[in-house]
């Protein structure tokens, strides 16, 4: 049984311009101890998908009737996330069994309350600890993520922490309630490479130790290659390709995935030209008909790709690609 199972997730927002589709027919599973990387450009719907798992999207959000998100914590009855009605029932998915780490740690801590107080507060809400137990546990967690002198840091405010330390405190806070699923939304994007390497190691250790599942959102394929087990590539609200890290990065099946990899500056070949994916991501207000990627795709065939919506196909080696030419690309790669 997977930890979280998302089926046919479609999210629309009601706006003055009408209903805008942000996420369409997205399905994925995360097992305990597994890291799923979710990759895509800004505006592809990564964060909206992640927030749906905790029901954090705004009041104008419309979830499709067919969509289901099932949280299956081992040993407990499965929770149907989208059918939760009342705020007070959402405890388990908001900080209980599911925790989230945001990109900008400075914006996620209250500036006028000490870091320690914030950690204790959520422990008092989500666990049965007493105040002194919670304090002890919070200091332990700060120590666990490698913050020196945790007892002193516990009394400090977020602005007294450096960037990397703030992100680690954020992780300590997210993990202190022992969540089963961690959602990490671009957790290393604002950090230097050296600090990024420390945070990635820390997250891998924690998966090994606590056996939790992680949904890791990033646009950095290098970070994905070093952390995730599986990858899902998202474009304009759709999953265009899913598979294991090796499949997707070694033999990308979708032209968009290939475009992302070609655009990446690689240290192993300094003379390789950087090839951008041509054009910009279209506005969700006018989503292209047919394949959403056809406006920027080098392989797009007029009359075909702008009319037929490609369904996800499973290639012989197990990766799933939503492209009308997926089989052709795959057989050509195989021959080469």
């Amino acid at each position, binding site marked *: 049984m997977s930890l979280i199972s998302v089926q046919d997730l479609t999210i629309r927002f009601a706006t003055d311009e009408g209903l805008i589709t942000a996420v369409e027919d997205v399905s994925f599973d995360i097992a305990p101890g597994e890291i799923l990387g979710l990759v895509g*450009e800004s505006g592809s719907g990564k964060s909206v998908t992640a927030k749906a798992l905790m029901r954090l999207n705004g009041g104008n959000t419309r979830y499709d009737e067919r969509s289901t998100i099932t949280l299956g914590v081992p040993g407990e009855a499965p929770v149907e996330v989208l059918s939760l009605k009342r705020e007070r029932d959402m405890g388990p998915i908001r900080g209980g069994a599911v925790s989230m780490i945001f990109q900008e740690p400075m914006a996620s801590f209250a500036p006028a309350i000490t870091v320690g107080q914030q950690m204790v507060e959520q422990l008092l809400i989500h666990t049965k600890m007493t105040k002194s137990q919670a304090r002890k546990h919070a200091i332990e967690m700060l120590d666990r993520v490698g913050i020196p002198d945790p007892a002193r840091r516990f009394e400090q405010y977020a602005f007294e922490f450096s960037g990397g330390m703030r992100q680690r405190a954020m992780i300590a806070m997210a993990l202190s309630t022992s969540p089963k699923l961690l959602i990490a939304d671009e957790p290393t994007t604002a950090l*230097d*490479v*050296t600090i990024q*390497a420390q945070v990635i190691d820390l997250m891998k250790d924690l998966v090994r130790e606590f056996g939790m599942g992680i949904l890791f959102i990033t646009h*950095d394929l290098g970070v994905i290659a070093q952390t995730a087990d599986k990858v899902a590539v998202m474009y304009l609200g759709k999953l265009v390709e899913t598979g294991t*890290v090796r499949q997707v990065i070694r033999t990308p099946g979708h032209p968009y995935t290939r475009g992302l990899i070609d655009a990446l500056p690689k240290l192993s070949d300094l003379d390789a030209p*950087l090839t951008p994916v041509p054009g910009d991501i279209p506005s969700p207000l006018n989503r292209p008909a047919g394949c959403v990627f056809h406006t920027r795709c080098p392989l797009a065939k007029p009359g075909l790709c702008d009319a037929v919506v490609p369904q996800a196909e499973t290639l012989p080696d197990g990766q799933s690609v939503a492209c009308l030419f997926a089989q052709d690309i795959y057989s050509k790669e195989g021959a080469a």
Partner: protein
Amino acid sequence: MSKDPVIEAKSLSVNYPLGKGLFGPRAYLSAVDNISLNIEKGSFFGLVGESGSGKTTLGRALLKAAPISEGEVFYRDEDVSHDLRTIKGLELKDYRKRAQLIFQDPYAALSPRMTVRDIIAEPLEVMGLTKTRAETDARVREIAAKCRLNLEHLRRFPHAFSGGQRQRISIARALVSGPKFIVADESVAALDVSIQADVLNLLKTIQRDMGISFLFISHDLSVVAHTCDHVAVMYLGNLVETAPTRSLFTRPRHPYTSALLSAIPSLDPDDTREAEKLTGEIPSPANPPKGCKFHTRCRFARDACKAERPQLREMAPGHMVACHFAEEFDFSENGALQSA
């Protein structure tokens, strides 16, 4: 490429006072500490380092936008030479035309109340470079075309554009006064990879076609490796290594450069090379370590490192390193090109 430097800095320091005592400032924070460098005409000079290493301050000092506390900086072109330490008045105005800055965040850099045309035209009007409106428009259109913005784009406001397009608008604004030297401060850091590649290609085209020299500030080593001719690595206000790009990435010689390179996540999922752990974080520049500033995080540090600050010395053609023991190390395994 000619060998004449467009920018020449000698022992440049930028110090900021820390608070005030009874008899003037008590202490100084040295954001840029005794840096000498030459940026050759028409080159793409990369500056890398962690946040807090002083990259931005150095870039601004070269634009006379941060105070030059000690040392000298010269700007030289065919017809003029400016001494940035003493420059003021009309000369400074002239330098503003010749040296420009492209910012990191294209969302914050553009006024939401001005049309793209007005944003690009503003430097021309402020500096009085064009006399009539028709002349201004012609110049704006010419530059906009170079940055792949069409006439319809010029009538719109910045909110209608994506990140990549906004960055192209910022570039057009920087180019419009006809500069010879541009500081690009983390100009692609906020962009998606596909757009990042597009903007980098645009900057390279501008450098080639218009003969502009760039100081390209970035914390992303793989971006620097692909765009720059020469790279300088900065740590806590000092240059620790400077070399032609290929030389630096084939064989890094400073332990800090090597650690930075090994921390880049590899695209190969089977690459099990352990990142060299740089423990801790960059110390506060208000209270830098004695001796070699990197010794607190260096795994090779010895007593000599704590006592004496190493100076840059040449170890290979154009490859300068500031480390007492650089001869003993072979970091080529962390070099990026070992597989090539």
